[in-house]
């Protein structure tokens, strides 16, 4: 496996597309009910936690691109091999692939659960799973450009629906935000940690980076995309806090959807049914991108064919998603994944930075020592 990959020009996408892709992976399904977890820790100051988590997110994004810039055109699978060698690096890559499989299952299962609790209680889980996986397969076989296109649509849907939250503001009580900063720093920190899984997903830039046409702009669009995501989460958190009382907020699983119930037009009401259905546009891109990342990994590690991996993976995810039956299990899945995502999205970039600094400076020293290091020099530069 080569550390650096050079995709053909017609397979590359513009950095501009990062704007949609990262937004989609980050927002996807988490936006339905993240408020409860944050409010449980930080109370009515939850919005400060969201803000803090957002800042950390920007920092992590910057760290990730710092690593990637050093390698010019490599993905995380390649970086793993370069830093930790074939076996340890490979093992880490496999752990990462497994993590993304579980994330995919979580997204899929959470959306299905939302559909079952809001539109069709009797809708068979397997059927909806097949529908979603079919869509992701259909887009996945056509390459990154189509994936970016689907994300663009998802992006539009997300921001069109966030406009609807203008209505709950009218019924909100702003004094619910007062007194500001009542929560202790520890509580705020816990709240920010609870945002972990909701905000994670931006680390897929680790895998998209070699496929970007204009890499120098990647930092700009990535930060912009995270800024949009954070602004959206902050906005929804504030709306939720002023709309619900604290007791109510802690008890509502799907706070974001609950708020849409009051939106009313002369020809249409109960927008949440519509939103739930159309949200498929926002959920599927997340699944597609993660699928693509996994399939890339299988190709890089084991040289499997993309189309075959897609089908095998779809069947695998389908089977796994059937295992989870009820709310408790899905909650458990979400809790498990949120701890893992904290490590992978926020802690791991820092570790990688340190590892890169150490390994590269060590190699530099080896190279300086004499001809023995020249081979290393070639592989690393």
């Amino acid at each position, binding site marked *: 496996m080569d550390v650096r990959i050079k995709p053909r020009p017609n397979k590359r996408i513009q950095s501009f597309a990062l704007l949609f892709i990262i937004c989609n992976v980050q927002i996807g399904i988490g936006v339905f009910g993240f408020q409860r977890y944050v409010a449980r820790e930080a109370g009515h100051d939850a919005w400060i936690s969201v803000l803090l988590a957002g800042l950390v997110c920007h920092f992590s994004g910057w760290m990730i691109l710092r690593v990637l810039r050093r390698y010019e055109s490599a993905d995380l699978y390649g970086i793993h091999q370069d830093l930790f060698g074939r076996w340890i690096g490979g093992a880490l890559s496999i752990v990462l692939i497994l993590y993304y499989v579980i994330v995919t299952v979580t997204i899929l299962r959470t959306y299905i659960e939302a559909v079952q609790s809001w*539109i069709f209680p009797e*809708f068979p889980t397997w059927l909806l799973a097949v*529908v979603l996986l079919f869509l992701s397969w259909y887009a996945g076989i056509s390459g990154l450009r189509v994936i970016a296109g689907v994300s663009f649509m998802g992006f539009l849907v997300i921001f069109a629906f966030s406009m609807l939250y203008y209505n709950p503001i009218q019924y909100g009580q702003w004094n619910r935000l007062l007194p500001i900063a009542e929560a202790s720093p520890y509580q705020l920190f816990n709240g920010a940690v609870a945002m972990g899984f909701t905000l994670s997903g931006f680390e897929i830039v680790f895998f998209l980076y070699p496929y970007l046409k204009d890499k120098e702009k990647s930092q700009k669009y990535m930060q912009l995309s995270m800024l949009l995501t954070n602004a959206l989460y902050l906005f929804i958190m504030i709306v939720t806090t002023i709309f619900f009382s604290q007791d109510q907020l802690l008890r509502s699983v799907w706070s974001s959807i609950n708020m849409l119930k009051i939106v009313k037009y002369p020809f249409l009401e109960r927008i949440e049914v519509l939103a739930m259905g*159309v949200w*498929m546009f926002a959920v599927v891109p997340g699944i597609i991108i993660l699928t693509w990342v996994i399939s890339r990994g299988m190709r890089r590690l084991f040289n499997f064919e993309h189309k075959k991996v897609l089908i095998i993976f779809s069947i695998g995810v389908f089977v796994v998603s059937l295992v989870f039956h009820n709310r408790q299990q899905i909650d458990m899945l979400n809790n498990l994944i949120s701890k893992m995502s904290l490590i992978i999205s926020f802690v791991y970039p820092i570790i990688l930075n340190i590892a890169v600094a150490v390994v590269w400076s060590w190699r530099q020293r080896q190279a300086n020592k004499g001809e023995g290091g020249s081979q290393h020099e070639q592989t690393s530069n």
Partner: protein
Amino acid sequence: MTTANMAFSDIASYLKLELNQLLPNCSDLVVHGINSSVAVCYVSGLVDTKVLSSSILSVLTMLDEDEVNTELIRQTITICEIEREGNLDQVALKLLQGHVYIAVLDEYEGLLCNIANFPTRAISASENETVIFGPVLGFNESLSSNIAILRSYIKDPDLVTEPHMLGTKMETRIQLTYMSEYVDQQYVDYVKSKLKQIKTDGLLGNALLVQKLQNHPYTIFPLMTLTERPDRTVQALMEGKVVIFMEGDSHVIIGPSSFIDFFLSVEDRYMSWGTGLFIRMLRFIGLMMSVFLTPVYVAALTFHYQMIPPALIVSLIETRTKVPFPPLIETLLLEITMELLREAGVRLPTKVCQTIGIVGGIVIGQAAVQAGFTSNILIMLVALAALGSFTTPNYLMGTSIRLIRYPMIFMAGLWGILGIVFVAMVIFIHLLRQTSLGRPYLFPIFPFRGKDLTVDMLLTPRAHYSYRVTPTKSGLKSNETENNQQSDTASSNSSSSNET
């Protein structure tokens, strides 16, 4: 006429015997002996009889029978395009392309004069793409007159017309046309490479050529525009697109086209900016209505009653109380009736067509509701959806749009809103996968190009006056102008393109 002279010293009977072997059973072949040493042959109907009698026959009869030779004839007859030809196989081919062959006794080579005049109709208004305002002229089936119309718009030497031949039997002539300064060379290369790959006996029309040029044979969407209107063609050329003319088809292919192009009419640009923008927006609303209106009705009435406000649901339920079918069946019945009406209206002669209006309006409209077949509101929705689909200026695209409504209605009946979103996503991904001459089909939307989108949608008054013109990146121009001059002469005369 030649049956009287059976002697072999007569050139006419010799020619007749030879040509009958090369073109057996060709009843419209005429071999006419002027006298014993000069004969003229041609295929009747393919040549201009006026030119034949005034410029050839009258001159030939004046010449002295004993002194005649081909050089003399060549100098006396008043036709520009003459060549010498001795090979009778070639002569037979040329005769079928409207040439006249003049043979002289005791000479190996005869003269081939091009006075082809294929039957064609006169240039008239374009009937399928009508406009209220703006030029009404449409192309006809003759390649040379179509190119002439084009040149009446663009007098620049940059206009390249490259002749190509398609098909082994029919030898369909096509011309690849583009502005060498504006065009992106990759589109031209793409078309050329595709044309080389085509293996066929011949193509009956440009609509078939479009199918051969596209990468995805199974899509229901037209991937390139077909138009009869010169102004639209000229606009496309000025935007740097490639245009393909075909002999025998009044439609020309414009490529690359994007999904949005099919909803734009040239007429929009003729109006003031505001009205043009309004009409384009109206068409997109029409598109949305024709795709989503009836599926949403089915989904809402089958599964999502709670989405309809109480005031509206009362009247909806009232009109549906007498209807014995579920919304899915009800809608499918009415939609298919609508399609039947439309199809019958197209197939019937114009005079009987009015009957369809009466049948549609009274029988379907009134009686269906009174009989408890459908609800009033559904009739309104179906009519609106049909109206919306007819606002699409392009006929092929209009048909595709009507077609995608059916899976959507069906899935809406099965899975409600989820079904609609599912079909919409499949179609969206499908559209994303398509390319037209190698350019993404959803072009200004994805990959997103703000400037092109504003020009396409006429979003700003400035966009109203600009064509999307991108200068070529490479120094191809000098090369192309040479090519251009060659094909210039080729296109001026309809049948000389074989020689180049």
